[in-house]
């Protein structure tokens, strides 16, 4: 099992590869007025407008700084819904060997166990839990289904 290592500031996270649809360079996003700040915009992806969420915003409360390794990771959050995750830096593909549980935050279930018992061990992100309920509701179009990715 491999995971895509990301970083947000000095925080390191990892996304299971299975959930990753594509890694894309940081392109221009269509702005969404009146959306919460965690929403970076809408990404045109294969004929759809995929909402993109800023990982930095989610975790650090600030916008992602533009870096050369900044990527938009198109994530499958289950139920054939895609969400873009704006990662400040995509590092590498790493192999998941061990998971060590850290601290579970009830209101942030998407923060999972850590891939090691080191200080700089990346924390797993659960894509299905990635979006908090309130945020997830925002992304669901009323009665409409988006094209799923295979």
């Amino acid at each position, binding site marked *: 099992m*491999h995971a*895509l290592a990301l970083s947000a500031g000095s925080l390191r996270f990892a996304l299971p*590869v*299975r959930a*990753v649809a*594509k*890694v*894309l*360079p940081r392109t221009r996003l269509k702005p969404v007025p009146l959306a919460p700040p965690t929403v970076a915009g809408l990404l045109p992806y294969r004929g759809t407008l995929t909402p993109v969420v800023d990982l930095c915003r989610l975790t650090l409360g600030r916008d992602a700084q533009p870096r*050369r*390794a900044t*990527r938009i990771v198109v994530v499958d959050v289950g139920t054939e819904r895609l969400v873009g995750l704006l990662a400040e830096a*995509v590092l*590498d*593909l790493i192999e998941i060997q061990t998971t060590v549980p850290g601290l579970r935050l009830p209101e942030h279930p998407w923060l999972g166990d850590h891939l090691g018992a080191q200080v700089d061990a990346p924390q797993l992100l659960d894509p299905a839990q990635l979006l908090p309920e309130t945020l997830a509701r925002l992304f669901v179009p009323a009665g409409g289904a988006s094209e799923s990715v295979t």
Partner: protein
Amino acid sequence: MHGSELARRQRWLVGIFAVLFLIFAFSAWRTLERVRVNGPIYSEIILGNVLIADILPPPAYIIESYLLALQLVDERDPARINDLVERGNRLRVEYDARQAFWRRTLPSGETADLMTNVAAEAAHDFFKLRDEIFVPAVRADDRARVREALPQMHREYEAHRLAIDRVVQLATESNKQLEAAAEATIERQRLILLVLATAILAVVAFIAVQGQRHARALSERIATASAIAGRVASGDLTTEVPETEGSDESSQLLRAIASMTASLRALVTRAKQASIELMSTATEFAATSRQQEATVQNFGSSTSQIAAAVKEITATSSELMNTMEGVNQVAGQTAALAEQGQSGLTHLDATMDRLAQAAATMASRLAAIREEAAEITGVVTTITKVADQTNMLSINAAIEAEKAGEQGLGFLVLAREIRRLADQTAVATLDIEQMVKQMQAAVSAGVMEIDRFAEEVRSGVASVADVGGQFGQIITQVKTLSERFDAVSHGMRSQSLGAQQIGDAMGQLTDGARQTSTALREFNSATESLRDAVATLRQEIAQFNVGG
């Protein structure tokens, strides 16, 4: 006493006048007596005329002509005839002349008429007969005619005689009347003369009396005037002159003397006052002149002091001149040094220029390097992008491979390798970027250094220029200084001259002071004389008593 003198003289004069007048009156009476009509002289003259008249044949009477004619009647001698005719013609001429006279002279009246008309006509006829008929007849010895003419002539002669006798009568009557009238007039005149003489004598007596009175008054006034004059002469100016009326010379004299006395009094009073003022003035003069003497003394000492000061000035001027010379020399040397400095700076200037040029060259070279560094950076950026893309691609590939499961394992390795290469490239490019940045920094630093250097060179050049300018200023100022020195020397010389002149002037002033001193002494003596004179004047004036 003067009064009697005047009166006596007056009496004498009047007496003499009266006597002379009486003599005159008496002689006038006598003359009248003698020259009156029918008086002795008149009678004598008339007697003389009567005698002449008795003897001479009157020319207005033609009796002589008649007589001649009668004589001609029987005369045969032609010489006698001529002679008689000649005398007859002469008589006619005389008659005509006398006729003309009486025609002119006689006042018109019966006498004139008889004389100039009636008698004249008869005479005229007589003469006409005689000259036109009788004489030619006589000459021609025409007896008949002669006898004819004669009675005619006689008739005319008688007529004339009658008329002429009447004239005589009338004239005699007239004369008598005139004599009577003259007599009356003379009598009247003698009466008048008598009356006048009496009156005049009375008047003379009256005048004599008046004259006496006037003479007395006059002599009184004159006496007063002389008394006053005498008192004034003796110095008493307080005399009061009595008021005088009258307009004659003596009153005028008295009044004149009064005013003269008053004027004299005023004059002497003023003179007294003036003499007092003069005295005080003379005293002031003396004081002033003493002050002046003192001043002149001071002046003398001041002059000596000034002379000493002038000497000092001259000495100081010489010292100053020497100092100036020394300073001038030093200034000259400074100028020479400054010029050397200037020429030295020119070299420096050239060097600086070369430095500046070298700096500019280096700057341009560094700029070139910077450009190339920029190009490298561009290339590196491209490489980085490619590496980036490669990285992304490899990741995507790995993801797909992972999803593919078993089949994708080999691909996964491959993707990992590619990713490693890309990462290495990225790292390398980072290094390159770093190096380029360092190079650029170095270049920038170098450019800055060169700029600073160029700036310093420029400022150096500017400094050199400044220094050159300052040298130039030094030189100019030294030149100015030289000129000023010249001016000062000139001034010094003038000052020396001036001091000399002052010395000369001092000498002159001293002479002048000496002269002034002499003059003052003279003035002093003059003042003394003045005081003496004033004292004398006062003495003289003191004689006069002005009563004040």
